[in-house]
């Protein structure tokens, strides 16, 4: 079966157009029922929210009138994630294939390559790949640099950046697929999702694989392409195994869920199987927390980061996340304080659902997952200064 990262050794860098076409054949012209093919394939978005790609395309196409816009989302603002960058730097033509298929299918007049401003190798690779494409294809494309902020990858922030140069989320509805760039329906799709589309157009079905980033306490941290049946333990083994006895796994990035190592190892990295357990693969980060690290301090550090990444537009998010992070830090540095534990619960409930975007919701879900997974640690934390990260 074809995989996203099949072909030349990844260390050799980007695959050029000639090699890409030799390996996979030319980009097929999508039939009028390509969106149906996509819907049947069950492909879900790989940016984190796992939204059905076919449904999104259908909705944009229905409102397009030939003026729709496709945003190729390579912002990758998730701190531990590397998979989108790896794909852009090694298989840029898969992504471009997916983008041009999308542009045809939703009758778009423009394709925007939205790539993280710090991801220089990815920008260069995508630009070189674009230069190899037809003039008709090149004429559709413009590029935009995504600021290195956590919220910059959100659909409405991507649209806002392309429209006005400001990568802050906007109030939804309307969502991007209803009213996006210049008011036109806009398809915002993660680069890995588009690469899958390029293979679906050739084979009819997705690869059955996912790109994941194994981070933290493993011997060889980095990106893996894994079959969705394999377990977290197997993925961690592929990443060289734990570097020391592991305490817990943070699954799905900073908006993800904590799982204690003992229960994590047997979990399959399959979207539906995880969802049945109330978990999600999210953006594909498998963060392994080594046993020598203090979970309370780790949680406080990540809450501090998420608070600082609020785009400071909505009061409950800006002030609420800061208050939550402060309370976490007080517990981490000063030891358990039951009033602060109660505040964490009350403020979590107060902040949740009260932003224009889902940044506060994601941060609160992360915190609640930590409080539920590590109740003893939070209830009996001894004062000690937080280690620097």
């Amino acid at each position, binding site marked *: 079966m074809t995989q996203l990262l099949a072909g030349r050794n990844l260390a050799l860098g980007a695959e050029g157009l000639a090699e890409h076409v030799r390996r996979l054949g030319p980009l097929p012209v999508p039939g009028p029922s390509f969106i149906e093919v996509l819907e049947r394939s069950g492909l879900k978005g790989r940016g984190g929210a796992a939204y059905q790609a076919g449904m999104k395309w259908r909705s944009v196409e229905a409102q397009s009138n030939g003026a729709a816009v496709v945003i190729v989302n390579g912002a990758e603002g998730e701190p531990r994630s590397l998979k989108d960058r790896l794909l852009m730097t090694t298989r840029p033509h898969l992504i471009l294939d997916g983008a041009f298929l999308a542009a045809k299918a939703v009758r778009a007049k423009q394709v925007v390559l939205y790539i993280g401003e710090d991801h220089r190798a990815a920008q260069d690779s995508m630009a070189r790949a674009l230069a190899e494409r037809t003039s008709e294809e090149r004429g559709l494309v413009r590029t935009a640099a995504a600021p290195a902020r956590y919220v910059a990858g959100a659909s409405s922030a991507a649209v806002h950046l392309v429209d006005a140069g400001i990568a802050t989320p906007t*109030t939804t509805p309307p969502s991007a697929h209803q009213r996006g760039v210049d008011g036109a329906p806009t398809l915002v799709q993660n680069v890995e999702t588009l690469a899958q589309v390029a293979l679906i157009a050739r084979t009819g079905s997705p690869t059955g694989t996912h790109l994941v980033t194994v981070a933290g306490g493993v011997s060889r941290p980095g990106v893996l392409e894994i079959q969705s049946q394999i377990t977290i333990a197997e993925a961690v083994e592929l990443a060289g195994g734990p570097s020391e006895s592991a305490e817990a796994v943070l699954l799905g990035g900073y908006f993800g869920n904590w799982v204690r190592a003992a229960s994590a190892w047997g979990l399959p990295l399959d979207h539906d199987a995880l969802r049945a357990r109330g978990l999600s693969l999210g953006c594909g980060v498998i963060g392994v927390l080594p046993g020598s690290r203090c979970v309370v301090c780790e949680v406080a550090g990540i809450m501090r980061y998420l608070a600082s990444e609020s785009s400071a*537009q909505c*009061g*409950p*998010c800006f*002030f*609420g996340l800061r208050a939550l992070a402060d309370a976490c830090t007080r517990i981490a540095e000063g030891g358990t304080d039951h009033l602060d534990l109660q505040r964490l619960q009350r403020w979590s409930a107060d902040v949740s659902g*009260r*932003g*224009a975007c889902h940044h506060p919701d994601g941060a609160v879900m992360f915190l609640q997952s930590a409080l539920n997974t590590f109740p003893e640690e939070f209830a009996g934390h001894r004062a000690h200064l937080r280690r620097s990260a």
Partner: protein
Amino acid sequence: MRLAVDRIKCDGHGQCAELLPELIRLDDWGYPIVAQEEIPDRLAPLARRAVSGCPLLALALQRRAG
């Protein structure tokens, strides 16, 4: 009808909670938490007054979808 806050426009002036404490309370930072329920008829005039009293036009009455 129900109340909806534009979270980006809202700066936490708190007028709404003064004018309509039956349905709106303020969080610890002064931003409104509005009841998600349908506005009862007896409170409709007060709700309209709260909407027009918002200095940033961040509060609105919304017909429930569907």
